[in-house]
């Protein structure tokens, strides 16, 4: 019980801290942050249920007014902004990423990469694009067009999520809650 609680809390803190990491500019001029990588890691390291709870805890703390969303954003305002769909998709993304790692028999690094892609990209965009379309009064295709710029960054994060999860599995074999 204690282990579940502390892992959920510590990974919520990790997601926040990864948001402080300075943004890297891609060649296309689009900033990428490590925060959504943190979301993927919640799922691939903690598993579906705990991963989703960690992200949910993080979001509650954003809502109550901590400036811990990437770029120092926070408070209730972010839930009325065009990116609200991504925020709603965050816990689901972590859940799916965790589910893939729990269920798959592939080597841990590959399973984590696939999970990070399905959760952190496919599922996340399935929430983010309709959210943006709704908030900016655009069609789904138009909204999708607006965020294609982020895809190269996401590809990098998927690979990193796989590598980090694999590294953790090697260093602390017993600590990966997604693969007990």
């Amino acid at each position, binding site marked *: *019980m*204690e*282990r579940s*609680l*502390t*892992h*959920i*809390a*510590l*990974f*919520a*803190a*990790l997601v*926040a*801290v*990864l948001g*402080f*990491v300075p943004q*890297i500019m891609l060649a296309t001029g689009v900033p990428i942050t*490590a925060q959504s*990588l943190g979301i993927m*890691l919640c799922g691939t*390291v903690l598993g579906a249920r705990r991963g989703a709870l960690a992200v949910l*805890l*993080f979001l*509650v*703390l954003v*809502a*109550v*007014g*901590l*400036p*811990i969303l990437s*770029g120092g*954003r*926070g*408070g*209730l*305002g*972010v*839930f*009325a*902004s*065009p990116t609200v769909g991504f925020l709603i998709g965050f816990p689901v993304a972590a859940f799916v990423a965790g589910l893939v790692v729990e269920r798959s028999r592939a080597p841990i690094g590959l399973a984590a990469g696939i999970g990070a892609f399905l959760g952190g990209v496919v599922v996340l965009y399935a929430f983010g694009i309709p959210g943006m379309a709704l*908030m*900016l*009064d*655009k069609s789904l295709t138009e909204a999708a067009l*607006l965020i294609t710029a982020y895809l190269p960054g996401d590809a990098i994060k998927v690979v*990193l999520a796989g*590598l*980090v999860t694999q*590294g*953790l599995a090697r*260093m*602390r074999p017993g*600590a990966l809650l997604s693969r007990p």
Partner: protein
Amino acid sequence: MLTLTSTVETPLHGVRAGIKLAALCVFTALLFQMQGPVALATAAAGVALVYAAFGMGFAAQGVRLLRPLWPFAVVIGVWHLWTADLAGGAVILLRLFTAVAAATLVTMTTRLSDMIAVIERLAAPLRHAGLPPRRLALAFALVIRFIPVLSDRMRQITAAWRARSPRRPGWRVLLPATLAALDDADHVAEALRARGGVG
């Protein structure tokens, strides 16, 4: 760590958090019903007036918090210039800025502890689903305490990397940082268990 609550005392600081949140819900729902630019401009002016009434310092902080919206304003502006539908663009932007500004107003005038109290009240029924309020409060406290701890750890890892290599650490800090979070979680779990557990 700083919160987004404004240090400028305003009359809204005295209003109960639950009432402000309920009012915000109603206001936002109405905002998304409005279709005409005139109605939306009136609502926007109303929110702007409230900010202005609380003084320059308060309004300046509000403007700073709205800064992440500007890229969207530029995109929508260009888009609607191109499609020659300026009224449509104005409606979208007015609604967006007013909704975010109103929500930010509640955040800026409500203390973190009051906000957390509301969350704990809302989550009280979850006690039957296996989440006692005490455990939730402990989780909040742990996250708030460990954000600066992990942040420091990340700085140390980066400094250690720089001491050894002329190159930038980049993504290489990720693995040790995640490892630190995992290990800290185990240590804190042990410490909690030694003190009687989370109940």
